[in-house]
């Protein structure tokens, strides 16, 4: 086919409007969220003392950190959906949740403690944490990847990894309301391990799915 004809054909299709990637991602996450919530409620559910726990700043900090992870990863994801975009100038956003948890660790160190730091770090729910967060993240990851297919990332594996990060942030937000380990040391150890698993899945899937 001559290129001239292809151009004429493309111009005839010019009226077709694609929705922006951000709008599609919002819809995808809103549709996937109930699936993850249903999984969460049927398998774990919130911890019974959630009302009193809310008065514990270290319980609340978990949500600040996981939400910060989800929001910054969403912002970076949408940026990377553009063909000319790279992490340069944007990657530092992902350090915000890291800084928040570091502040939490520092604050907890200043508090008088009965329990040694290693006990707090190991906690009681490590195994549940590293298996439940990936599980609740998977429906969100599927939705995010589906939406990001509308983008045109220069590095599909990286875009998939950031999609993994955003779904792990949301999945961890659900899990945090179940987990009775509130120490920032626990959060800084096991949540990243669970997140890394989701990021790896996202990178592998993104490599295939996000090419354009």
């Amino acid at each position, binding site marked *: *086919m*001559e290129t001239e004809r292809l*151009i004429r054909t493309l111009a005839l299709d010019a009226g077709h409007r*694609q929705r922006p990637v951000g709008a599609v991602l919002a819809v995808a996450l809103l549709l996937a969220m109930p699936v993850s919530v249903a999984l969460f409620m049927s398998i774990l559910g919130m911890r019974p003392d959630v009302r009193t726990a809310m008065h514990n700043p270290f319980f609340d900090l978990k949500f600040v950190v996981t939400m910060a992870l989800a929001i910054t990863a969403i912002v970076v994801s949408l940026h990377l959906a553009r063909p000319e975009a790279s992490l340069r100038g944007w990657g530092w956003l992902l350090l915000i949740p890291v800084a928040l948890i570091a502040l939490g660790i520092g604050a907890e160190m200043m508090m008088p403690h009965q329990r040694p730091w290693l006990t707090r770090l190991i906690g009681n729910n490590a195994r549940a944490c590293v298996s439940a967060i990936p599980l609740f993240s998977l429906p969100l990851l599927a939705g995010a990847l589906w939406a990001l297919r509308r983008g045109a990332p*220069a590095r599909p594996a990286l875009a998939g990894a950031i999609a993994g990060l955003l779904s792990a942030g949301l999945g961890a937000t659900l899990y945090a309301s179940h987990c009775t380990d509130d120490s920032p040391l626990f959060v800084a150890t096991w949540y990243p391990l669970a997140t890394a698993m989701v990021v790896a899945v996202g990178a592998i899937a993104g490599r295939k799915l996000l090419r354009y």
Partner: protein
Amino acid sequence: MRDRDDEWTGLMRSAIAGDAAAYGRLLEAVTPVLRAAARRGLARAGQPVDQSEDIVQDILLAVHLKRHTWDAEAPFAPWLFAIARNKLIDALRRRGRRVFVNIDDFSDVIAGPPAEETVPANEVTSHLNGLPPRQRDVLQSIAVNSESIKDTAKKLAMSEGAVRVALHRGLASLAARLRKE
């Protein structure tokens, strides 16, 4: 170069605002630049340059299907060259070469003379037959036989809206097939 980029950005803004003629002019204006860059990339990789037209068409399809990722506040050329670079690397890899394409390969290219179109591209045509029947018939009529949307609708006993939908889906399937190759 500056003037050229500004002109492209202006045309793309009009295109996004619904001016199909501006869109056609833009695609025509970028094609010789893409062709020259594709030839240069092929030559560097030691490949026959007469395959450049397949790469040009692959880039044009991607530009079309991904145009919603262009930010109307940003200049058009960097966005275009990022897509072109991605597609050129893909094409060279498919031909069994590991290559690094410098972004400057595009930005400093001066359009070659239009007569440089040598071997007619055939990748798109060869994938046409593998499409679902309705998309294939619509694309055959519009892209190959240069019929209008109206005449295509009449000939295939479809509504014009259905022709437009099949046209868009056909272009998207073509791009997906080119990618999988």
